C-alpha cells in the first residue's frame, strides 16, 4: 500500500530519479518483509528451535516443520512462514497445560493451516497488524518514562488507551479484511482428519478458553488471529479496543462443527 504513494511523493520532490530509487527501495523492503516475516515473528517471541515435527507432517503429507519454543504463560501455538518454509512455535505455557495427546490435536490444527494455505497471509498480517498495535505499548512506555506514574496508575493507562484508539481500527481492519473466520473451522476439520480425536480437540479448545478467563495476560492483539482461539479477554473498560481483533468463530459453533464430523 505504501509502495504506491511514497514514490509519487518522491517524484514530486525529487523528480524521476527520486521516483525510481524510492520505488526500488520499497520493492526491496516489501520483498524482505515478505520473505523474513516468519523469522521476524519468531524473534519477536524469542523462540528457539527445539526440533522438527515429522510424524504429523508425514500424516498430513507436507514436508516436516521446524518446531520452536518460547517462554509465555499462555497456551499459545502458532505457525509462521512464507514461500513454503513454515515453522511452528509452541509456548512453555502450552507445554505445561497440554498432555501429549492434547498437544498432538492442537499441533494437527496448525498442519491444517499449512494444508489450507493460511499461513503466509496469517504471517504477513501478524507482522503489520502486530507492529501497528505495539504502538500502544510504546505509548505506555513513553508515559511511564515521562513521569506519568506506574503502569497501574490512571494516567499511563489512559495514554495507552488513547494510543490504542489510534492504532486499533487500522490494525484490526488489516486482520478483519484479509482473514476469514472459516479458516479456523477448516483447520479444526483437518485436525480431526489427522488425529481422529474430535472430542479431545473440542475439549482442549474449551479448556483453553476457560483457562484464559481465569488467567488473563496482555497479548499483542495484532497477533491473536494466529493463535488457536481468541486469547484476548475484556477485563475492564480500557480493553474495549481488543474487541475489534476477534477473527475467530464462536466456540459453540466450532465445537458443534468439530463434533459434527463424527455424528
Amino acid at each position, binding site marked *: 500500500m505504501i509502495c504506491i504513494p511514497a514514490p509519487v511523493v518522491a517524484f514530486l520532490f525529487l523528480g524521476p530519479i527520486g521516483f525510481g530509487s524510492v520505488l526500488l527501495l520499497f520493492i526491496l523492503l516489501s520483498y524482505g518483509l515478505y520473505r523474513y516475516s516468519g523469522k521476524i515473528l519468531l524473534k519477536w517471541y524469542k523462540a528457539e528451535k527445539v526440533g522438527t515435527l515429522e510424524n504429523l507432517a508425514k500424516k498430513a503429507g507436507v514436508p516436516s516443520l521446524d518446531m520452536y519454543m518460547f517462554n509465555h504463560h499462555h497456551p499459545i501455538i502458532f505457525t509462521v512462514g512464507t514461500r513454503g518454509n513454515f515453522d511452528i512455535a509452541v509456548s512453555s505455557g502450552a507445554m505445561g497445560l497440554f498432555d501429549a495427546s492434547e498437544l498432538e490435536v492442537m499441533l494437527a490444527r496448525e498442519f491444517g493451516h499449512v494444508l489450507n494455505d493460511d499461513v503466509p497471509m496469517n504471517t504477513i498480517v501478524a507482522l503489520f497488524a502486530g507492529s501497528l498495535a505495539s504502538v500502544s505499548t510504546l505509548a505506555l512506555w513513553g508515559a511511564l518514562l515521562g513521569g506519568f506514574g506506574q503502569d497501574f496508575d490512571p494516567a499511563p493507562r489512559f495514554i495507552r*488507551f488513547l494510543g490504542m484508539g*489510534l492504532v*486499533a481500527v487500522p490494525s484490526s481492519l488489516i486482520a478483519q479484511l484479509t482473514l476469514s*473466520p472459516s479458516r479456523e473451522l477448516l483447520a479444526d476439520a483437518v485436525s480431526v482428519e489427522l488425529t481422529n480425536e474430535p472430542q479431545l480437540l473440542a475439549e482442549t479448545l474449551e479448556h483453553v478458553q476457560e483457562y484464559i478467563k481465569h488467567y488473563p495476560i496482555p497479548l499483542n492483539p495484532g497477533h491473536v488471529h494466529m493463535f488457536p482461539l481468541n486469547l484476548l479477554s475484556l477485563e475492564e473498560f480500557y480493553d474495549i*479496543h481488543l474487541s475489534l481483533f*476477534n477473527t475467530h*468463530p464462536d466456540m459453540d459453533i466450532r465445537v458443534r462443527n468439530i463434533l459434527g464430523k463424527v455424528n
Partner: protein
Amino acid sequence: MIETILMKKFSSWKLSLFFSFIAYSAVLFFIIVVDVFGRRDFDPLEVGLITVGYMGAVMTMLAIGFIVFKKRMNSRI
C-alpha cells in the same frame, strides 16, 4: 461507573470506534496547536483545510470500520 453504563448500553466494538474518534480528534487538536504556534497566527482557512482533510480521512476509515465490524461481529460464523 459511567464505563459500566456505556458498556451495558453499547456493544464494545461501537464504543471502541467512538473512542478511536476521540483519540484522532485529540491528535487533530495537537496538529492545530503546533500549526498555530509555528505560524504565530491563527489562519482560519488553513486550520479549516487541515480539519476537513484530516477528519475526512478519519471518518472514511471509521465508516469502513463500522461497516466491516458490523458485518463481522453480528454474523460470526
